[in-house]
């Protein structure tokens, strides 16, 4: 019997009158690579924020490795690592110091910190830049360090929220190879959001397509094609989500996008 590591049951999130996520349910099995695919403003980021305890669901139940994200928040938090959509390193600290801070916040024992940090820095090929300030790092280096940081407390789940935005193809390939290795070799469960079809198709074992806050289809790429009687994931995706531009079709979604980006407080 397989046991689900991530489980969502009837999860809804409202912001005032706007329903960002509308009664969604899904399960992700141990060691699985699962993608949340959808257009901008579909509810991907809101879902990942609820899963990672940043937002409280209006209703429904979310569990990570058996821990309820609202009632057993700290246990749930120890169960996952996250690579945020926006950069989240302290620019004025070194790579090692960023890792050290994370390890301490997550209660990694002092004696384990140094060897673990050095091992992970080697893994993402940043051991040579151990003591450099983050402000001297390129976008790709930062992302690699963020992945290493997310793994520092040995989580069972790794969340990646649109992790390849702004990265070049080489870095993207390298990153996904590495993520796949983690899943295959360590049995880590990977959950990522994206709006790039190729990433979902190449990397994920199962895909959920989300639109207007609802999961409109789920399954492997062949299953999604079969369900929609199409030949490629792109055709399936467009049939499910429509081919019109979001921003022009639905005023509510404009409002939602604005609201969400205000919440994200993005600068870049």
């Amino acid at each position, binding site marked *: 019997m397989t046991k689900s590591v991530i489980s969502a049951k009837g999860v809804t999130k409202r912001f005032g009158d706007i329903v960002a996520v509308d009664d969604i349910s899904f399960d992700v099995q141990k060691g699985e690579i699962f993608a949340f695919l959808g257009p901008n403003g579909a509810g991907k980021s809101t879902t990942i924020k609820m899963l990672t305890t940043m937002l409280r669901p209006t209703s429904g139940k979310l569990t990570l490795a058996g821990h309820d994200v609202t009632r057993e928040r700290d246990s749930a938090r120890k169960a996952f690592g*996250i690579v945020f959509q926006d950069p989240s390193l302290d620019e004025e600290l070194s790579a090692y110091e960023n890792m050290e*801070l994370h390890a301490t916040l*997550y209660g990694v024992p002092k004696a384990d910190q140094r060897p673990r940090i050095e091992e992970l820095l080697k893994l993402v090929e940043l051991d040579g830049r151990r003591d450099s300030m983050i402000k001297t790092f390129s976008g790709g280096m930062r992302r690699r360090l963020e992945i290493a940081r997310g793994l520092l407390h040995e989580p069972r789940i790794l969340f990646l929220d649109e992790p390849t935005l702004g990265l070049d193809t080489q870095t993207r390939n390298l990153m996904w190879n590495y993520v796949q290795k983690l899943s295959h070799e360590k049995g880590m469960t990977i959950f990522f959001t994206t709006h790039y079809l190729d990433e979902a198709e190449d990397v994920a074992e199962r895909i959920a397509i989300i639109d207007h806050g609802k999961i409109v289809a789920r399954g492997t790429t062949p299953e999604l094609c079969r369900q929609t009687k199409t030949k490629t994931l792109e055709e399936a995706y467009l049939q499910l989500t429509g081919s019109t531009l979001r921003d022009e079709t639905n005023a509510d979604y404009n409002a939602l996008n604005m609201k969400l980006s205000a919440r994200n407080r993005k600068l870049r």
Partner: protein
Amino acid sequence: MDVLYILWLRQVRRYWRSGSRLLGTLGQPILLLLALGYGIGAIYRRAGEGNYLQFLVPGIITQTVLLSGIFWGIIILQDKRFGFLSEMLVAPVSRTKILLGSALGGATISIFQGILVFVLSVVFGFRPHSWAAVGPAFLVLVLMCVALTSFGAAIASMVDDFQGFQGINNLLVMPLFFLSSALYPLNNVPTALRIISTLNPVSYMVDALRHLLSNQAHFGLGKDMVVMAVVFVLCLAFAINRFNRIQM
């Protein structure tokens, strides 16, 4: 304890590495000491009020920590805008702890600057009334710095952009400084100004330091300490409350 320490260390490390911040915050007190201490000092003496530097230095120390304490909040704003706050807030640590560790780091920086200004003042000719009172004055400084840093953190938690923060601060810091007992004795000022200054908590901070360092007091140390204790608790509670409400 480890968590508080690492958050404190982060603030201190960042400060220590940024030479420009250190110099920037010392420029103003030096200017005030020179221009006011020596410029106004001559008139002050002629008016029969004694040595103005002895009167002024506690006010300048207060101004330094008022500015650096409240402006420290900008780091919380930076963390909010540049993403590092998310990393801290999804960690299995309470927000109150994150705030306390960081604010204690900020307060340490302010305390350090206050001490630096004190040392500078001694170089410029200030003499503490009694060296034995410097210890208690240090404790007053610590209390002030934690309160003011928390206040800055509370404001930074509520605003979302740097201009807003800057604006609120200018609206607060300058009046809090100029309308306090920092620059002039409250005995002979017009009634309106005296009332405002008496309501301004910063006056009590200045007064406590002035009592201990220069043996001159307007309200008296007892009253100063009571007001400061209340302000300390209020600022800390305000900061914890606001920081816990930050939406991600």
